[in-house]
C-alpha cells in the first residue's frame, strides 16, 4: 500500500521516512451503491449522515449527505443553496455600477479580485482602457488579496485537521496586516468596492506604498515561520499525503481551475494564459504538484504566496505616477453598446469569469458569474470516496470554497 512521495517540494524528509499512506487511500473508488429496501430505507449497516449546514468544518452553510460504512465514505452528495441570494438576477436589475458592491459579496475573502474580474469584463464590453497606474494598483491589490486568501485557507485547513488555534492565529495575524492596507486604501476591510470601469475609485493615500512595501518585505519571514511550524510536521504529512487524490484527467474533464488544478500537475494559470492587465510584465513561476493530494494543494498555496511576493516587489518598485481613471469612463449614465462579452481572471480560487450581454440599456440584459469554488466542488464525491469522515473534512478544506460564491 505504501506509495512513494518524493517529487513534492520540501517533502523529501517525510517520504524518506516512508510514512505509509492511510489505509484505503489511493484505492479504487467504491462502486458499491448502498442497498436499499423497496421503500427506500437503507439496509445493512450503512449509515446516512447529514454533515452540515451548521457543521463547523463546512466553511459556511454547506451540507454533505454522506453514506458511511463504519468510518468509510461510500457516497457523498453535496447540498448547497442555503446562502443563495439571487446575485445574478439582481445584477440584471441594477445598473452596471450597482453590481460592483454586490461582487464584493461573492467571494468575500477576495473582494478586490472579484471587483477586477467584473471591471475587466465591462471594460471589454465598453472599450475602456485603464491607465498605467490603475493597472499597477490592480495587480498590487490582487496579489495582496491572493496572499491573504491563501494564508487564511492554510489556516483553516490546519484548523480542520485538528491543529486548533495556533496556525489559524498566525495566519490571521498576517491577514490582518493586509486587511489594514485594504482599509486605508478603500475604506473597508473586506467589502472593498474599489475598482471602477476604466480604473480605480481613488488614488493611493500618502504613505500607502511604503506600508505595503513593509508588509510585503515581512511576508516571507512569516512563510518561513509557518513552514517551520508545519510543513515538516509528521502529523500533517500523515494526514494529508495520499488523501483526496484528484487525477489529472478528472481535473481537466471537470474543468477544475486554480490551485486545485495545478496541484494535479496541469500547468494552467490564466495570468500566464491570458496575460490580462499587465501580467505580461512580471516574471513569476507557476508551482505545480505531482500527486494532486491534499498535501500538494496545501504546498501549492504556500509556493504561490512566495511567487506573489515576487510580483508584488516588482509592482511596488515600478508603479508609475499618473491618472487612475480612463477619461472616457462615465460614472453616471453608463450605457455600453449592445454586445456580449466574457471576461475572466485568475482569482485566488481559480478562474473567475463574468458573462454579460448588453442591449444598450443602463443595466445588463444577462449577467452570469462563473464561480471557481462552485465548479471546483463538483468533484468532491470523486475525491472523497473510500476515505474516512475525518479526511472528508480536510479534503473539503483543501478545495477552498466560500459559500458566498458557491450559492451566489
Amino acid at each position, binding site marked *: 500500500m505504501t506509495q512513494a512521495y518524493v517529487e513534492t517540494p520540501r517533502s523529501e524528509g*517525510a517520504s*524518506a521516512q516512508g510514512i505509509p499512506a492511510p489505509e484505503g487511500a489511493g484505492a479504487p473508488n467504491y462502486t458499491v451503491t448502498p442497498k436499499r429496501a423497496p421503500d427506500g430505507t437503507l439496509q445493512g449497516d450503512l449509515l446516512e449522515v447529514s454533515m452540515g449546514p451548521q457543521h463547523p468544518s463546512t466553511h459556511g452553510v454547506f451540507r454533505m449527505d454522506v453514506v458511511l460504512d463504519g468510518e468509510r465514505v461510500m457516497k457523498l452528495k453535496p447540498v448547497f443553496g442555503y446562502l443563495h441570494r439571487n446575485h445574478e438576477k439582481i445584477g440584471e436589475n441594477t445598473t452596471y455600477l*450597482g453590481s460592483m*458592491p454586490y461582487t464584493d459579496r461573492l467571494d468575500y475573502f477576495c473582494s478586490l479580485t472579484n471587483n477586477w474580474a467584473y471591471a475587466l469584463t465591462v471594460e471589454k464590453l465598453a472599450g475602456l482602457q485603464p491607465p498605467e497606474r490603475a493597472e499597477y494598483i490592480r495587480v498590487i491589490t490582487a496579489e495582496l488579496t491572493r496572499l491573504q486568501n491563501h494564508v487564511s485557507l492554510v489556516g483553516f485547513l490546519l484548523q480542520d485537521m485538528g491543529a486548533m488555534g495556533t496556525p489559524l492565529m498566525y495566519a490571521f*495575524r498576517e491577514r490582518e496586516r493586509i486587511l489594514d492596507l485594504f482599509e486605508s486604501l478603500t*475604506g473597508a476591510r473586506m467589502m472593498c*468596492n474599489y475598482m471602477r470601469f476604466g480604473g480605480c475609485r481613488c488614488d493611493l493615500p500618502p504613505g500607502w506604498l511604503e506600508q505595503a512595501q513593509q508588509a510585503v518585505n515581512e511576508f516571507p519571514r512569516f512563510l518561513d515561520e509557518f513552514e517551520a511550524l508545519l510543513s515538516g510536521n509528521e502529523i500533517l504529512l500523515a494526514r494529508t499525503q495520499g488523501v483526496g487524490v484528484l487525477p489529472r484527467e478528472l481535473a481537466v474533464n471537470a474543468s477544475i481551475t486554480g490551485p486545485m488544478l495545478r496541484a494535479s500537475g496541469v500547468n494552467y494559470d490564466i495570468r500566464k494564459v491570458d496575460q490580462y492587465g499587465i501580467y505580461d510584465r512580471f516574471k513569476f513561476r507557476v508551482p505545480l504538484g505531482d500527486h494532486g493530494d491534499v498535501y500538494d494543494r496545501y504546498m501549492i498555496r504556500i509556493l504561490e504566496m512566495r511567487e506573489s511576493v515576487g510580483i508584488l516587489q516588482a509592482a511596488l518598485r515600478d508603479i508609475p505616477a499618473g491618472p487612475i481613471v480612463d477619461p472616457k469612463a462615465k460614472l*453616471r449614465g453608463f450605457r455600453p453598446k449592445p454586445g456580449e462579452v466574457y471576461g475572466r481572471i485568475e482569482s485566488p480560487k481559480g478562474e473567475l469569469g463574468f458573462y454579460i450581454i448588453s442591449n444598450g440599456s443602463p443595466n445588463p440584459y444577462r449577467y452570469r458569474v462563473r464561480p471557481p469554488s462552485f465548479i471546483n466542488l463538483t468533484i468532491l464525491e470523486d475525491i472523497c470516496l473510500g476515505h474516512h469522515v475525518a479526511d472528508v473534512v480536510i479534503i473539503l478544506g483543501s478545495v477552498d470554497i466560500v459559500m458566498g460564491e458557491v450559492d451566489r
Partner: protein
Amino acid sequence: MSAPLLGQGIFKGLAETARNFFGSYVKKDRLITVQYPEERLPQTEAARSFPVLVYDGDDWQKGLRCVACLICEKECPPQCIYIVKDTVRKPDAAGKLQFQPRVFDIDISVCMSCQICVEVCPFDAIKMDVQYELSTGDRFGTLLLRKQQLAKPNQYYHQIHPTEAAEVDAHLSADKAKAKAAPTPKPA
C-alpha cells in the same frame, strides 16, 4: 537526504510556538492584539460606515446642500434611500433658491456602505460617516434615519475626512467664483 528523526518536525513547530509565546512578552510586533473596548485603533481617513447629509451654515434645514435631484436614490444598489422632493424652492445657505428634500430617509439596516451615493452626487451633499458603534435594541425605528438625524454640519465633515473635505470646499468655492464671474442667464 538522510531520514530525519521521526517527530523532529513536531519539535521544530513547537519551538516556533514557544518563540512566539515568550517573544510576546518582550517584542511589540509579536503581541498585536488590541483590547477593543478599552483600546481602539485610530480610524483611517478612507473609513466609511453610513451616509450623512452635509449642510453649510448653522441652520440644518436651510443649509442642506441636497437639492433632491434623486440621483442617489436611483443609483443606490440596495435601494435604501427614500426622497420626496419639495414642491417650492427655498433659499439655501447662500441665499439661492433651490429645491430641497421634504423627506430624506436612509434605512441603515438595508444600506451596505458601498459609497456609490457619495460618488454619484454632483452637489457633494451626501458623504460617508465614520461612526461604527451603532447597535440598538430596536429593530426598526432607530435604524431608519430621518433627514434631521442625517444632517451634519460641514465642520463635522472636516473633522472626519479632513483632506477630502478641504478638496471639496476648494472646488465648491472655485465653482462659485466662476459662476459669479460669468453669471448664467436666468431661465425665463
